């Protein structure tokens, strides 16, 4: 019964995502808003891969998000004017960064792990802030744009066509979601769940826990850097705030808000976060109050996240 319901959810999510450009205009949105939701959903889902399915809180995924964004921007600006080259370079930079940092922090747990991940994010933030020659410092990296795609005879003008760009981002989202779903169904993913549920028992069963957490961290960071790449493409711009701790905090909030034990929860959290922020900030200068109030009320009334709450409603 439960399996069937998960299936239904997945079909509904994909039906909505694939048709987004056709209906979003009718409910007062615009295509770029939908693109933002999908981009940030990739980041929130990557954080949730670690948080919800491995039980490890990274409060510094902005580090890899930012590395992806700067990697892509710098590649297009200085090395090769191609969106695919930027994407590969950005994801590679973020993943390699996470491999090295992961080695240093994999023994830490809980609050200490969260804090050290923040620390590395902040180090990148201040480096990008101060290294003005390369990154443009506080003004951000400008003077580049995403490039139209051309794969053999097929070409897609993602630069000027917002809808085409949305589908490009959605393809990246699909690849990330499929990758994560497959990994979670594999023996590796099941082992991660075992570590989440009871790390000590997993260790006694002979599972190399640190190694698994390292791999989960690197995989999750790779998807976060993919999100960073498409975020940079979305804005045709990167600035140091992509690295800052409140950016990481936003990802965690999206995951918790949507429901961190569920696969699609972070997507819903990202949608709520982005749409609320966009709508409220266009209505009033004091948009932070209703958004903050929403977080507070969510903790009081939806303790399992929005999706977790809906699931429980349905069960009773």
């Amino acid at each position, binding site marked *: 019964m439960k399996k069937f319901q998960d299936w239904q959810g997945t079909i509904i999510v994909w039906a909505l995502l694939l048709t987004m450009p056709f209906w979003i205009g009718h409910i007062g949105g615009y295509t770029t808003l939908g693109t933002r939701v999908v981009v940030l959903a990739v980041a929130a889902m990557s954080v949730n891969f670690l948080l919800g399915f491995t039980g490890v809180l990274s409060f510094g995924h902005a580090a890899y998000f930012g590395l992806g964004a700067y990697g892509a921007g710098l590649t297009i600006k200085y090395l090769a004017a191609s969106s695919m080259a930027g994407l590969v370079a950005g994801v590679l930079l973020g993943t390699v960064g996470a491999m090295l940092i992961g080695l240093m*922090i994999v023994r830490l747990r809980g*609050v*200490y792990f969260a804090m050290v991940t923040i620390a*590395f994010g902040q180090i990148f933030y201040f480096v990008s802030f101060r290294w003005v020659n390369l990154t443009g410092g506080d003004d951000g990296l400008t003077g580049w744009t995403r490039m139209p795609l051309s794969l053999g005879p097929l070409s897609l003008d993602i630069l000027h066509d917002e809808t085409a760009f949305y589908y490009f981002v959605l393809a990246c989202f699909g690849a990330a979601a499929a990758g994560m779903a497959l990994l979670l169904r594999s023996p590796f993913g099941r082992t991660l769940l075992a570590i989440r549920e009871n790390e000590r028992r997993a260790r006694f069963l002979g599972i190399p826990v640190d190694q698994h957490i390292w791999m989960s961290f690197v995989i999750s960071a790779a998807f976060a850097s993919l999100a960073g790449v498409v975020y940079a493409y979305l804005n045709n711009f990167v600035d140091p705030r992509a690295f800052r701790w409140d950016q990481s905090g936003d990802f965690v909030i999206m995951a918790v808000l949507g429901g961190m034990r569920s696969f699609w929860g972070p997507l819903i959290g990202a949608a709520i976060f982005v749409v609320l922020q966009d709508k409220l900030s266009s209505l009033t200068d004091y948009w932070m109050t209703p958004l*903050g109030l929403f977080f*507070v009320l969510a903790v009081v009334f939806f303790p399992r996240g929005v999706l977790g709450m809906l699931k429980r409603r349905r069960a009773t």
Partner: protein
Amino acid sequence: MSQVILFNLLNGLIVGAFYALMALGLSLILNLSGVINFAHGGFLALGAYFAYSLAPITGFWIALVIAPLGAAIIGVAVERVLIRRLYGRDPLYSLLMTFGLAFIFQDGLKFIWGAQSVPYQIPSWLASPLSMDLFFLTGYRIFMIAVVAIAVGGLFLILGYTRLGIRIRAGTLDLDTVSVLGVNVRVLRSLNFGLGIYLAGLAGVLAAGMLGLAPTIGDQLIMPSFVAIIVGGLGSLPGTLVGGLLIGVVSGITSVYFSEATEAVIYVMMALILMVRPHGLFGDEGRLQ
């Protein structure tokens, strides 16, 4: 050159004292109630603005004492209504709620006192340098360090010798036992939260005298304060104090030799310390996972 170093050393000490004051409050709340309070910077700003409104009426000195008390009263009210719902739950929810509270604080301060930064008047005899040679040694800087020292000394006296303080320390170790022994844990947590917020408010008033006021005054202080807690080691208040002063001084000295790394150095230091000592300098092994 030695003057430059001395200047930055003193500056680092002052900044470190702010971090320590804020971090001690965060630590108190985290240790007893397991809540990570991201709204702490908002309470700091609240204390500062209370002083800004009070000082023209009551004068500088009374505002210095009363304004943090006002912040603490608001703090206890917020704790009673909202924060208490976080007790015993995953610390992640404290992230979500206190992030939300921080947003609300920032807007509220902007709404009441305006988004522009405003100056905060300090007594003129505190503002002048003590001597010509040491031009940077204004009375206010010395005064700030003295106030922080008194506040921290007072905190440790309260924790060491009063019934409230002993109960807070006992509750940090084993709250269930303290509750079974007949202590009203709800009141204890509220008072403890108020105490933490009082320290934040005091830091706010002091910071206002040096930097002026803006709704975002607490924003630059909150992350370094967490760093101070982690460097000192979770669960250890003396560790938090040492951590705060240490990162302040290290970043002050770094600004002399490699000014680009002034802000980044504390995070590098924290990462290095945690790799060598996974529980910080004075943290207890295995507590507060």
